[in-house]
């Protein structure tokens, strides 16, 4: 809880500073764009959060975004598939990728880092292959489909700002994810095995199945993200569509309180983390003249956040140990 408050406060401070430094930050256009990007990145960040909770990592997210982002327009425009068939196909591929990763990681005991790193290379390569490295897009068609990402939902009592349609997806995903993680036995299993897989297994939990589920969720949401991303921007270049998105997603999850050691994380935190990442990027574009230092700033902020978190945690552990010790000796 304290963690979410901390990161929310940081988000607020960055927003205020950016607004002070740049007039265009608070413009309706910029805000709407920012909020839309936050929703899109929020979705893929929630996905990777499940994997991180199990103590694993998914480096293939950006490439899954690319595969789906290129695959959907390619199937629709050059292969002339129907919309339902194309959407079903990219959905099945995303979930299949997650299943594939999960099986390799649990049944063959391959390290998640290696499996998903190969995925990162593999899926982008495949996308570049079938598109022959050409930009694919919807042109001027598929307006209804694109409305899923570009649409706006007017909010009552607020003029000049409407809620971007991806927020509907984000809300549905976030609420389902939060319920899964906090209210079901499966969420408890994920948290337990993330802390200590061996003890979870000794307690009769089918840890393999839960780990596979986490990778399926991660790739599935990366696929959903890829779909919305490409619908939003209309076209995709296989070379760099979704490039580094896995890092944005992992960073958002870590900023939002997921420990890379596993067993820890909240969905709300991840969304705030995703928002912070987007505001930081927005700030760099608006305030500085050097876009090229973006990664340096983001890297530094995340590092500071993680250091602060670790220090606070150590302090808390020490205090708690002292209290527990006192309680035991006095009773």
């Amino acid at each position, binding site marked *: 809880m304290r963690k979410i408050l901390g990161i929310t406060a940081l988000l607020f401070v960055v927003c205020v500073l950016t607004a002070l430094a740049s007039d265009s930050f608070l413009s309706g256009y910029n805000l709407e764009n920012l909020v839309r990007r936050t929703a899109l990145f929020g979705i893929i960040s929630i996905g990777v959060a499940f994997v991180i909770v199990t103590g694993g990592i998914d480096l293939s997210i950006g490439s899954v975004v690319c595969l789906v982002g290129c695959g959907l327009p390619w199937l629709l425009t050059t292969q002339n598939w129907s919309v339902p068939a194309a959407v079903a196909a990219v959905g099945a591929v995303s979930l299949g990728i997650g299943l594939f990763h999960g099986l390799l990681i649990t049944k063959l005991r391959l390290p998640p880092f290696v499996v998903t790193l190969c995925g990162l290379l593999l899926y982008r390569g495949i996308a570049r292959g079938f598109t022959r490295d050409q930009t694919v897009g919807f042109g001027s068609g598929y307006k209804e489909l694109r409305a899923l990402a570009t649409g706006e939902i007017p909010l009552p009592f607020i003029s000049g700002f409407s809620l971007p349609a991806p927020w509907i997806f984000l809300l549905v995903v976030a609420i389902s994810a939060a319920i899964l993680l906090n*209210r*079901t*036995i*499966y969420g*408890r*299993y994920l*948290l*337990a095995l993330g*802390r*200590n897989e*061996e*003890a*979870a*297994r*000794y*307690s*009769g*939990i*089918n840890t393999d199945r839960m780990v596979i589920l986490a990778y399926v969720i991660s790739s599935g949401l990366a696929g959903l993200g890829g779909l919305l991303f490409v619908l939003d921007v209309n076209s995709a270049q296989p070379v760099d569509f979704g490039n580094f998105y896995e890092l944005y997603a992992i960073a958002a999850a870590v900023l939002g309180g997921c420990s890379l050691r596993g*067993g*820890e994380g909240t969905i709300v935190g991840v969304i705030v983390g995703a928002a912070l990442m987007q505001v930081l990027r927005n700030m760099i574009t608006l305030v500085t003249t050097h876009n090229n230092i973006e990664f340096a700033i983001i890297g530094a902020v995340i590092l500071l956040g993680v250091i602060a978190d670790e220090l606070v945690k150590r302090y808390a*552990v*020490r205090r*708690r*140990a002292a*209290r*527990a*010790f006192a*309680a*035991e*000796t006095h*009773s």
Partner: protein
Amino acid sequence: MTAPLLEASGLTKSFPGVRALKGVRLTLSRGEVLAVIGENGAGKSTLMKILAGVQHPDSGEIRLDQQRVEILSVLQALHHGIALIHQELNLADNLDVAANIFLGREHLRHGLIDTRRLRQEARTHLAAVGLDVDPATRVSTLSLGQQQLVEIAKALSVNARVLIMDEPTSSLSSSEAANLFRVIRDLRSRGVSIIYISHRLGEVKELADRVTVLRDGENAGDLAKSEIHHAAMVRLMVGRDLSQFYAHTPHPPGPVVLEVDQLRTAAHPRHPLSFQVRAGEIVGVAGLIGAGRTELLAALFGVTPAVGGTLRVAGQEISPQSPQDAIAAGLALVPEDRKRQGVILAMAVRDNLSLASLRRDQKRGFLNRSRERHLAQEMIRDLRIKTPSEQQPVQFLSGGNQQKVVLGKWLALRPRVLLLDEPTRGIDVGAKHEIYRLMEDLSRAGVAILFVSSELEEILGLSDRALVLHEGRITGELPRSALSEESVLHLATDTLAESVAS
């Protein structure tokens, strides 16, 4: 009387949640074999680690030759001539004997390792411990007993005056142990002082010039050579008479619940295991480290599925391929490594207690929070788990209370067969007593109990019957009336058993 070589006093050391040592004192004379004994968790290991520079005391002082010394690192301890030989040997088994003896202190010639000189010098040190192997032999090809001697040779090569040996015989055969004793006596006659830690009271009696007993991190008493008797040692270790400590009073057992027939474990597939456990019976499993005891429990519980044989629980044949299968058949396992396999340290007491029964208590996949709370309160009360609240992360509990959490997790499922692997390792005497009482209560309630222990006292005190394992096979099954330290150790170490088994 001459002044002691080593004198430690007022040593205190705390870890989060535990006070491991409370003002402990220890003296050691030149050429003396001092046995330090105590139950698991009494503080022996911590004391030895402090003397060897692995850990630093919170307070207290150490004097060597009456000079106060600070031992801040293993290197400094070695410099003072104090060497610790760990229970799990610390050799790089991919390297040869000479390389291990001089690891970190290699002789150089033109900047390169002078292998010839290393091997030459190694030969003298090996001769001193009576080990007749070529210094160029890879350590991995040596037996455990030989590796132990390499460790001692290594300690002698730095001119150790004080040799600390932690459970040196826990994985040795009886002939290897006998050889080790000869080496120890020889070292003693050459003025080396030895601190000998062991659970085997028979060995202590044979070897020690003096005994220091620790209990719950404090000195429980010392015994001079003439006072070293089994009963005296046990009384000091547990703080009361044995008959009170182990609360077990045999009662007539019920029908057979666990039936193991020709079971072959993955670790020792050549040795089929057969035995039975009845309802309300407590069966102990004794043996050396590596005898296959943990592997047996792992096979019964589906952690490492058996490769052959049949298993019946209450007449129903089962073939557990995972802990889920075993749990479904009414089995429960309190595993050997509590912190890695038993509890999830960072999770709350309540969440640990409910972990195994979540599936049963679910409401269509959703958590049943009120049931979880009830369960936690019930277990905390019934098992007397000392915790400030059910929300407390388990890591802040003492070892004994952590173990009660593991037990509580299983009792929630009302198992028919309870398997326990070293159930009292690393917990204090009071908590031990409570765990024994719980085992006793459960057996009275008709649970079939199979427990593994390296503490002979525990096997002798608690078992209705004991199985003794040696190198993967059951070398004997002893009824309570035939249980003694000698009879168990004989079966656990002797090669005579091989003819019996085949």
